[in-house]
């Protein structure tokens, strides 16, 4: 066979590529343009990693300054007096408030959001679904401070009735007893947070449910499944990891939500057994409320509490990632 013909047939250059070149060719970056472009895009990725590292390093550094001066126990002290010498502060109250309000928010928002997402993708009249989805898209973009303003001036006055009712029937549990103060409590915060994260969880879930391949739903239908059974068989399993990541987004927002909590909650630095009595606080709210009058020492203490919040969100996201990865084998995204 003629050698020149062989050369024109084969796309790689005529000479035998060296091992290094082959390796580069394998990555698809043999031209200068390709190299520069790859460098730029990889550089951006690395830059993001550097930022994450920097956040961890700088927060830890400032936090360590504060904690070394703390004369209380940083984890268990029920006090936040950073302007004293020596300062005494601890995050127990904040951790409690943050976790409780987020749990309330998730418990309300996730089922409702999944319900709305299903409503939009599988139940609502088609003519209605488009506009409603559009409006929810827009609501996801409403800034949290607006929710905060609405929560403080509209929602709070409306909570009196619900609180009275909860106190009458569930007051005996201790968790739902109410002494009649302004309903600016962790429960109100949780409900407001639920309303706030509802659009985002709904949106992401709806996207996922919409992507369920028609053929899987038809497979279920052809087996004689009712609409709900189609959803259980084909839609929910397919969308599960999507719903988890949607909830993760929502939880992230709820854990770190600052302004809406700061406007609605009337904070006290203690833990109430009842969710209805005002009091408690969250990491983010505490930072926002105390920042204005904090000295440098106080700022470092707030940074220390922010670091804890950062670690919590990190753990939440990490856990969600693991759940999603574990389900990947069954996700069928590549099927």
């Amino acid at each position, binding site marked *: 066979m003629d050698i020149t013909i062989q050369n024109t047939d084969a796309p790689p250059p005529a000479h035998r590529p060296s091992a290094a070149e082959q390796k580069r060719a394998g990555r698809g970056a043999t031209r200068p343009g390709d190299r520069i472009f790859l460098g730029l895009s990889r550089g951006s990725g690395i830059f993001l990693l550097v930022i994450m590292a920097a956040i961890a390093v700088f927060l830890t550094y400032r936090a360590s300054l504060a904690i070394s001066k703390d004369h209380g126990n940083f984890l268990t002290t029920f006090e936040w007096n950073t302007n004293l010498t020596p300062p005494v502060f601890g995050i127990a109250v904040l951790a409690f408030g943050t976790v409780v309000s987020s749990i309330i928010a998730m418990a309300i928002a996730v089922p409702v959001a999944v319900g709305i997402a299903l409503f939009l993708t599988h139940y609502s009249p*088609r003519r209605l679904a488009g506009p409603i989805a559009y409006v929810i898209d827009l609501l996801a973009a409403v800034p949290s401070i607006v929710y905060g303003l609405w929560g403080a001036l509209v929602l709070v006055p409306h909570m009196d009735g619900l609180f009275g009712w909860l106190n009458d029937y569930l007051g005996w549990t201790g968790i739902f007893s109410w002494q009649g103060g302004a309903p600016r409590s962790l429960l109100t915060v949780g409900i407001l947070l639920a309303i706030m994260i509802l659009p985002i969880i709904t949106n992401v879930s709806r996207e996922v449910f919409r992507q369920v*391949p028609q*053929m*899987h739903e*038809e*497979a*279920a*239908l*052809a*087996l*004689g*499944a*009712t609409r709900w*059974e189609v959803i259980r*068989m*084909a839609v929910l*399993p*397919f969308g*599960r990891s999507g719903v988890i990541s949607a909830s993760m987004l929502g939880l992230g927002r709820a854990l770190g939500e600052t302004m809406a909590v700061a406007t609605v909650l009337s904070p006290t630095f203690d833990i109430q057994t009842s969710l209805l009595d005002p009091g408690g606080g969250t990491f983010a709210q505490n930072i926002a409320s105390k920042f204005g009058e904090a000295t440098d020492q106080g700022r470092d203490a707030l940074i220390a509490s922010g670091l804890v919040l950062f670690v919590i969100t990190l753990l939440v996201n990490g856990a969600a990632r693991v759940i999603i990865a574990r389900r990947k*084998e*069954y*996700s*069928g995204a*590549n*099927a």
Partner: protein
Amino acid sequence: MAKRIDVSGLTAYYGSHKAIEDISMSVEPRSVTAFIGPSGCGKSTFLRTLNRMHEVTSGGRVEGKVLLDNEDLYGAGVDPVAVRREVGMVFQRPNPFPTMSIFDNVAAGLRLNGNYKKSELNDVVERSLRGANLWNEVKDRLNKPGSGLSGGQQQRLCIARAIAVEPKVLLMDEPCSALDPISTLAIEDLIGELKERFTIVIVTHNMQQAARVSDRTAFFNLAAVGQPGRLIEIDETERIFSNPSVQATEDYISGRFG
């Protein structure tokens, strides 16, 4: 217990578009009936009217009658869910549930109806997989996801899933069009076995396939693009392929158009 189908005056729409018009035919129990015709002639649409899957598509509606052993599928008070239980379907692209294992895929239909004992389920799953000529290939990995199988195996898994609920009729919408020749052959062999127990209707683009697997063949055509599809003729497969009574059928089969 295979059942017969009698269709009379069936017209199907997508919104205001008429997809097929005035189709009447009978499908004999325990036989294979093939639908052939050029693309867009409505044979898949017609197939989907036979288990009320057509109305799942937005704007899909139907006029006319489809009798399953003398009971109208479109009669008042008929539950489409119950219809689909009687009339199973296999789709063009293999569509095992990606989130379920092979076992769960086959058991999916059964689990809908009440509580089965584990042993009963095992029996039915094994019987269905054997019925679909798949048992020997998957018996060691029943708990692996169905999406890990090859295309031909996935399609046979879908057939196993469909026959597990013991339907009376099995509709197949171009079940081999996404498969290689060897897998196609396996499915065709399987169809030959399944017709002992089920009434089978198969849509195919492949005329040799229709000739190989079917007892009767129906030829669909449309007057022009945008016009509704119509049934041109239905007869014994042998006759359709050797001596059809309509000229258009002969033209199509001899490859003069389509």
